[in-house]
């Protein structure tokens, strides 16, 4: 949980700085952090159902408070809080550096304390610092998930042109693929990461990370709905994502070709399924209208 908060904090630091020159970064770098109401851009006007917003607020509520521009705040006060935050920030930064370095050892050592110890050695900190992560390996997996999300958002931003040229279901499939490809270097150890995420202690965080990820994918694909459909869509996409992720574990085709075919089919199925449902509804209305007409006509004839 803390890790998320740090990476959010890092994000804010960056966005805050960037927002001076280009407000657009504020939106694109870290859309999670801003309420639609606070957004400087109309494009960010992305309604979220309240439960998820509350979820993300919970982890970053204090940060939110800091971010809200307060014109009345004097400069000296701001400097002071900056300084206070800085000491805090440095500590977290050390831990983030350890996790970053540890990721390089994951392919050989797995998602383990040993990888974290190796990471700490690399950044020239005493490996005892691993004790500062309350849930050890889970912190590493969670850091990776957050890191991937940030990279995914960056990718989506930089490939906006390419993505907007694709039809809807191809766009979704493409984004999922970009995200899953980040797991390729760790694929042999990924089952271990999944089992860590499924640990009851870690489940709340991993569930939230996945919810946020799926939400980001829908948002990037251009979904702006606010109705009940919202839940259905996210559940559906969560299912597709998880299924593909699992398929990938046992896919030995070159460059995971079969995985991407599998993914394309699942996404088309889902889109088709929605279309089929809509068509069925239309058909039902048509049939209903037809029967109604016949009955009406029949009754009319009877009464005449």
């Amino acid at each position: 949980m803390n890790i998320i908060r740090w990476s959010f904090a890092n994000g804010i630091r960056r966005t805050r700085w960037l927002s001076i020159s280009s407000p657009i970064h504020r939106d694109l770098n870290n859309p999670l952090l801003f309420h639609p109401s606070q957004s400087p851009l109309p494009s960010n006007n992305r309604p979220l159902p309240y439960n998820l917003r509350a979820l993300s607020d919970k982890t970053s509520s204090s940060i939110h408070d800091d971010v809200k521009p307060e014109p009345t705040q004097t400069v000296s006060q701001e400097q002071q809080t900056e300084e206070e935050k800085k000491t805090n920030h440095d500590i977290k930064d050390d831990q983030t550096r350890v996790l970053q370095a540890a990721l390089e050892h994951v392919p050989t050592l797995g998602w383990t304390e040993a990888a974290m110890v190796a990471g700490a050695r690399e950044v020239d900190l005493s490996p005892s610092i691993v004790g500062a992560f309350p849930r050890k390996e889970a912190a590493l997996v969670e850091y990776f998930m957050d890191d991937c999300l940030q990279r995914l958002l960056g990718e989506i931003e930089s490939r906006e042109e390419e993505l907007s040229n694709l039809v809807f279901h191809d766009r979704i499939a493409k984004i999922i693929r970009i995200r899953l490809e980040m797991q390729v270097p760790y694929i042999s150890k990924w089952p271990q990461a999944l089992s860590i995420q499924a640990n009851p202690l870690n489940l709340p965080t991993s569930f939230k990370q996945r919810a946020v990820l799926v939400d980001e994918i829908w948002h990037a694909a251009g979904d702006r709905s606010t109705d009940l459909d919202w839940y259905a869509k996210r559940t559906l996409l969560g299912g597709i994502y998880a299924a593909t992720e699992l398929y990938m574990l046992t896919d030995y085709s070159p460059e995971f070709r079969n995985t991407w075919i599998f993914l394309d089919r699942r996404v088309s199925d889902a889109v088709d399924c929605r279309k089929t449902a809509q068509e069925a509804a239309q058909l039902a209305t048509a049939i209903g209208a037809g029967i109604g007409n016949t009955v009406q006509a029949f009754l009319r004839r009877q009464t005449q």
Partner: protein
Amino acid sequence: MPITSPALLHSHATSFGFKEVPEEEKSRMVGDVFSSVASKYDIMNDIMSVGLHRLWKDRLVSKLSPFPGMQHLDVAGGTGDIAFRVLEAIHSLERQRISGVAVDEDAEDETRVFICDINPAMLDVGRRRAIAKGLGEARSLIWMEGDAEALKFEDASMDGYTIAFGIRNVTHIEKALSEAYRVLRRGGRFLCLELSHVDIPGFRDLYDFYSFSVIPSVGEIVAGDRESYQYLVESIRKFPSQEKFATMIKEAGFEKVEYENLAGGVVAIHSGFKL
């Protein structure tokens, strides 16, 4: 006592149990206590804590999460209780890894656990136990006499620092803490296991009765030394509360300071990182 001699003019009174004694005296008196109980130390610990002290020490070491290649300093650990556990934890990590990936051989060889105690009698007990455990020749165990307030180690040379049931007997706790901070590397961890304060009403009364009525008598019967155990229970009451001690650790420069009460506060594990 005539306070006329120049040495005593500059001396502050410090506590030895409930008694006020000059600072110069305390370390000698503590030394006497431990010299006199060293031989019965283990059995007394078992009796007094009903065997719980073993679990508390296990908990301390599991918090430390030792790793191969660690440079660890255990202060006031003459009997080796913590040191043996640290080594055991490292060995079991290594055994786990044998089947898996290649182990960093150098890292294994570099593992060092330094046991530093001010009292030679306690160190002797520890050395004997090391031999009994087959660790007599272990290169990774280094026994040395030394004062927690003036450690003979270089700055930033240690990954971990533990002190179990020891800091209470140090004359200047602040000095011991700043020494701990000095010898640790960045990222290194400070852990302190110490008898602390019980705040739960009812249990506290029971605990007080046990400490003041039972322990000194047991001390007299088993170790033949009532005074030393009287000192023990008094010094526990004189030790700063969990919160206060945590503040002292922060003041020494440690970050992420936290503590955990065990057995309702009978003992507490304080933890901090040098960052």
